[in-house]
């Protein structure tokens, strides 16, 4: 049960949030131009790394805003929280 510092509301309990998986995977602007492999790459392939991972989180039981989190998957330590559209931190 970790704490997440929502960029809009401040630090709240994890139970208020839902996770949206890996971040910075933009939906292709022209899906019809992609072949099956390219579309599958967007749709299914995720890194699932051990270490700091950039993820999307949603303050579902709060302000309902989506934002990004840099979280170490090995110990749940959150290195940084940043808004949608912002660049991931350099680590």
């Amino acid at each position, binding site marked *: *049960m*970790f*704490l997440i510092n929502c960029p809009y509301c401040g630090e709240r309990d994890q139970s208020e949030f*839902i996770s*949206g998986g890996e971040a910075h995977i*933009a*939906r292709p602007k*022209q*899906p*019809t131009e*992609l072949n*099956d492999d390219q*579309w*599958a790459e967007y*749709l299914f392939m995720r890194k699932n790394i051990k270490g700091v991972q950039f993820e*999307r989180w*949603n303050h*579902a039981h709060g302000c*309902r*805003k*989506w934002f990004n989190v840099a979280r170490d998957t090995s*110990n*749940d*330590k959150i290195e940084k929280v940043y808004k*949608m*559209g912002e660049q991931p931190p350099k680590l």
Partner: protein
Amino acid sequence: MSKNLRINNKQFVDETRKLSFVFNGKKLYGYKGDTLASALLSNNIHLVGRSFKYHRPRGIMTSGSEEPNAILQIGNDDALTEPNVRATEIELYDGLICNSQNCWPSVKFDIGGINNFLSPLLPAGFYYKTFMWPASFWEKYEYFIRKSAGLGKSPTKQDPDMYDHRYMHCDILIVGGGVSGLIAAKIASDDNKKVLLLEDKELLGGSLIYDDNDISKIDNQKSSEWLKRLIDNINNDKNIIIKTRTSLAAYHNYNFLLARQNLTDHLSVNDRNNKIRQRLYKIRAKKVIISTGAIERPQIFHNNDRPGIMLASAVKKYIDYYGVRCGLENVLFTNNDSAYETALSLHNSGTKLNAIIDIRDNSSSEIVTKIKSLGIQIYWNHTIVNTKGYKRIKKVTVMKLNDKGNDVIGKKIELNCDCLAISGGWTPMVHLFTQSGGKLKFDNKDNIFVPDKTNLNQLSIGSAKGDFELDDVLINSIKDTKKFLQIENSNFDKIDVKCSKEKEKKNIWLLPSDKPLSKTKPFLDYQNDSTAKDIKLALREGFKSIEHVKRYTTTGMGTDQGKLANMHALGIVADTTNTNMGDLGTTTFRPPYTPLTFGTIVGRNVGQFFDVFRKTPMHDWHVDNNAKFENVGQWKRAWYYPKDGESMHDTVQRESKAARKSSGILDASTLGKIDIQGTDANEFLNRVYTNAWSKLQVGKCRYGLMLNEDGMVYDDGVTTKLGENHYLMTTTTGGAANVMSKLEDYLQTEWPELNVFLTSVTDHYATASVCGPNAKKIINKIFKDLDLSDESFPHMSFKEVKLGDINCRVMRISFTGELSYEINVEASYGKYIWEKCIEAGKEFNITPYGTETMHLLRAEKGFIIVGQDTDGTMTPVDLQMDWIISKKKYDFIGKRSLYRSDTIREDRKQLVGLLTDDPNEILEEGAQIVKDENKKPVNMLGHVTSSYFSPTLKKSIALAVLKEGKQLKGQKLLVPMINKTIKVTVSDTVFLDKKNERING
């Protein structure tokens, strides 16, 4: 109470308050302040249970939570009885009833004891080896294993007690109210921090509070006196919240901790009425200080498990705290100085100490010198090779150790005793530290694992970090706490500690005996009866990982989680395999640290509070009209409305006939409703639904299908265009929250350029849906001025009207295939409008129907229910709903996936109708469909998703998903059931009114 076992005038036990209790049917007495264990010991009762495998007699061994043997069944009430309670942890109360577990017919004569003589046949892994084969015998084996396993009985009735949860926040959480925890609390408080101090016992002070000897001194005062003054100080400190009788159960990431407080377990049963029994604290701490202390280790020698063999520290606590002698003829067996404190307590209390056996060569500390001067016989460099006495220890056999300490030499010496106090040094309680993800390191000098690295803001101090002597404990606790809290000076900086012990000890994990190992029983895990021999056998059989050795031998797997002798098990593995203990690592410590009751875990979330449930504004009407309810998500939905004596089947037949013949009414308030506004709202709908929305006019409704990006159907519903840039979307009842979240996701992350705002309005509106050939007449009676002609108010359109002051949104949409109107009003008018419809419909026999009839009516029309006829693997094409996929739109969610190689496969499962050859046979939902049931393995072609008996069609109808279903229309297939095979024919999915004529009444 035996007179010569009870020492009077002990300050922690109130001799003016005599309490009676019953142990194994016998009435006994103790005092307020006793634990059940100390009360039993004061009655000269050591034998309290039988071991798990060999049923060997076992006695009270410790004075704390590490107790492996004295686990009892408390209470004899079917609802209140509690198994596996440690006698050392339960405070005595008047009227306590307890019984031994794991023995039949009695603890003194136990039939399972024969296992002890069969023990050569019960080696490590016995259960795995024997009960594995043949697999078909497992059911029989399980019966016997469970019967002879017998660790207590569960209550069979509902728990009548009340439990509570509470959140707490603090700057500093201190776990353990011994001397180091108290010092840390005071330092933190003096620095103006909010401190929460947890102590699992009734009183603060740990083991120093009852230390009566005057060898160790703090600031020139007797250490217990010094500590009492500190406790007085802390009790009056406003920065410190103290919770006693509170044990920490779990230490999670981000300093989130769970602690359980016992509030009534120490009271007599009559005093517990209407009080909360236990409370679970959910604690968020900025910093955590662990001062949980250490557990004394036993020593591992042949027959080290007899009743009367106890930890030396426990023997000392029973004398100094409870005023109870554990024996009248005592022998001490040690490898370090701390047992000499027990010797001093025995001496000071006038209790006979026959001898001390010490495996070391000598010690010249002040305390040992003092014991020597008292004339007590000390056998240096000796060990115990055997013990005697079945239900209580009677004798120990002692021999001299050789130079290497791996064998015994010389003559056997026999010593009489009725209590053997053993000490093998100390093990820091690092359980909480490791639970929190901390990594341990091995200290080769003291042979202990100590806290090393952690990601959390935490600190271990005192003996929990490996400081065992008073001077180390105090001075390092002060130093470590100051550093942790970044404090320059404290009021303890000039502390003066005088300590008397030597820190040297001698460590032999498995003591030698004059007999070969195979002929001995040196117990490591008393509860699970695993011995050093079992560990060695496991290693011989090829187990290497300590986690595997643990499971194979069951060492450390009892209710005490091997708190006592896990270290010895590790040590023996390390010795046998020539490995450094640090490289071997430890087994995992999992929460809870001490067992929790289920009641504490669930707290108030029982009965009607088990889960949140949602009611529609018409709920009370449904209740008054005998509705049966079904759970849909968190909603309670009216399921069907049986009239006196009607079965569910009969009810549904009646309700559906009425809806088709005249009129029916459904509470549709639970459907998810999302208000969509903004200049790009239309574009947004185009992107989230598969069909086109550009040409929808204000006042019109449209059905939409929503996919996941993988092309699978996700949700469906009707959306109404209320205004130029204003829509009302409905979703399935169960999918509402997820749809809302998904739409927000796309708006905020993929399409932030769209000017669209979403508001969940599910709870804001109530919906009554009136359907049937007479629906128009009923609506006309309610809204007299509303033009209901098909020209003015056609199917799939909407009008806003007023009923008095109530704004009503009326949609002409249908999920039943009948002419139907949905009236949406603000939720507070929901029951009013519902009753209005019932009243207006009376002359047309308006019949309220529930979800079951709704399902039947829509199935007759072949309308899908997302989540029933779909399961996340169905595309619109699979559902034969190709018509709803726009060919013109460039993109929508899931579009690209509709022509992936997998989704265009011809042999996917597709939605079809099924008709049974016997029209009265109703298929079971979920039943498998096959073509040939004789050719094995039978090829499964699909399964039934919806099935009903249609009273209108007078036959059974079903929807199913079927491999290549589209091509199979007219084919005969089989549905094999447990006692028959049902013949079916594949049909169209629309069973009734294929031309959609009923929609206009």
